[in-house]
C-alpha cells in the first residue's frame, strides 16, 4: 500500500496541473494511494509510523530537496520503503537518485528498483542531504587519526545525497560538481581569509572523504542539517550504512 506525503508548497496554483497529471499516471500504474499533506508542525515520523501500523509498505515523498531532507531526517529508522516524486525547483537530490523531475518520476516509482542508502548521523539525529557548519574557528578531527585546522575561520559542508556546487573563482564559468554517495561522507572545508578591508573571501575548498568526524570549536557554532538549525560546541558526524531503503532510477549516480 502506498502513502503519499505532499509538501505544503504544492498547494500553489502553478503546481496543481503537474500534481493532477501525476495522480492520473499513478492511478494508471495502479500505485495510487492515500495522500497526506505536510504542515509546518507535522511530526512526520509519528505520521509515518501510524500509516505503517495501518499496513503502508511504501511512503512516497512528493516535493523538493527540503521536503526530502525534512521527512527522511526524522523517519530514517522507520521500517518501510521510501519513494520520491520531485516536483518544482530546488531538486538536486533527484538527479543523484536517478529520478527525473515531474511526471516521468512516476514511471521510476512504478519500476520499484530499490537500493539501500547510507545516511549521515549527527549528535543523535540523522541527516540525509547535507550538513553545513557556518564559518567559525573550528578544529576537525577525522576518523580519530588526523586533525585539520585553518589559519582563521572555516566553513564545513558535509554532503551525503545533496551534491555540493562550488566555483574556483569569479572567472570560473564551469561549476564543479562533486557527487557523493560512494560509501563515505565527503567533507568540504572552505577557509575564509581576510584579503581586503571589506571582508572575508572564501578560498578553494579542501575535500576529505571520511566515515567519522568530530568538529569542535572554542565557541558555539551554528549547524544546519537538512534545514534544521542548531548551535553546538561539539559535533560528531558518522555514516550509518544502508539505513534507508529507497526506490531509485536507472540513471542514479552510484
Amino acid at each position: 500500500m502506498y502513502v503519499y506525503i505532499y509538501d505544503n508548497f504544492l498547494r500553489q496554483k502553478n503546481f496543481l496541473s503537474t500534481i493532477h497529471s501525476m495522480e492520473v499516471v499513478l492511478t494508471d500504474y495502479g500505485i495510487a494511494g492515500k495522500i497526506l499533506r505536510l504542515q509546518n508542525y507535522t511530526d512526520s515520523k509519528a505520521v509515518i509510523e501510524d500509516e505503517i501500523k495501518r499496513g503502508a509498505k511504501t511512503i512516497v515523498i512528493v516535493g523538493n530537496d527540503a521536503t526530502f531532507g525534512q521527512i527522511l531526517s526524522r523517519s530514517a529508522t522507520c521500517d518501510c520503503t521510501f519513494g520520491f516524486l520531485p516536483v518544482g525547483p530546488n531538486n538536486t537530490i533527484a538527479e543523484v537518485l536517478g529520478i527525473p523531475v515531474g511526471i516521468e518520476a512516476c514511471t521510476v516509482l512504478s519500476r520499484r528498483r530499490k537500493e539501500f542508502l547510507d545516511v549521515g548521523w549527527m549528535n543523535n539525529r540523522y541527516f540525509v542531504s547535507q550538513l553545513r557548519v557556518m564559518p567559525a574557528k573550528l578544529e576537525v578531527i577525522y576518523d580519530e587519526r588526523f586533525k585539520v585546522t585553518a589559519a582563521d575561520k572555516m566553513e564545513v559542508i558535509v554532503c551525503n545525497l545533496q551534491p555540493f556546487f562550488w566555483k574556483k573563482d569569479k572567472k570560473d564559468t564551469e561549476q564543479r560538481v562533486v557527487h557523493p554517495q560512494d560509501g563515505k561522507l565527503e567533507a568540504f572545508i572552505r577557509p575564509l581569509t581576510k584579503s581586503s578591508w571589506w571582508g572575508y573571501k572564501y578560498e578553494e575548498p579542501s575535500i576529505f572523504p571520511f566515515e567519522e568526524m568530530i568538529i569542535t570549536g572554542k565557541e558555539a557554532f551554528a549547524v544546519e542539517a537538512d534545514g534544521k538549525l542548531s548551535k553546538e560546541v561539539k559535533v560528531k558526524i558518522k555514516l550509518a550504512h544502508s539505513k534507508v531503503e529507497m526506490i531509485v532510477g536507472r540513471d542514479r549516480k552510484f
Partner: protein
Amino acid sequence: MIFQRPAPKNIEENNEPEVNELSRQHVQDEVETVVGPSVTVEGDFASEGNIVVKGTVSGSVFTSKHLTVEMGAKIMANVRAGSATIAGEVKGNMKIKESLELVSTSRVVGDIDVKNLKIESGALLYGKITMPGIESGEKSVKTKLFKKTEDAGVQFAS
C-alpha cells in the same frame, strides 16, 4: 516482414554504451582528497584514493594511489604512496611503490625508496636514494645537494 519483431542485437548495442558511460563517469567522479592552500593537517593522514596537497601536512601520509604535492605545499612527514609528483617541499622519508617525479620547484630532504625516479632540472634533493634491481654490492647511491642537474631523468640499468 512488417510485423517482424525488432532484432535483439539493437537493444544490446544500445545498452553497451550506457554501461561504458556509467563506468567512465564513476571513474571521473572518484573523489580525491584535497588539502587546500591555507589548511593544516596534523596526524596520520591516509586516504584510499588520490591525494593532492596544496597546504601543510605534518605527521605521516599514506595512499595506495597517487600523491601530488603542489608548488608552495609543505609536507613534514614520512610519505608512503603508490606514485607521486612533487612540486613543493617534503621533509621526511619517502617510500614510493612505482614512480616518483620531482619537478623543478621541488625540495626534498629525506631518504627515498622508489622503483622509478625522474628528477627535473632545478629540483633540490638531500638524502639517500634506494632503488630495486641493483646488486647488493652497489645497494644505494648516496646523493648530496644536487643543484641544477643538466639532464632530466635519472636512469639506472635494469
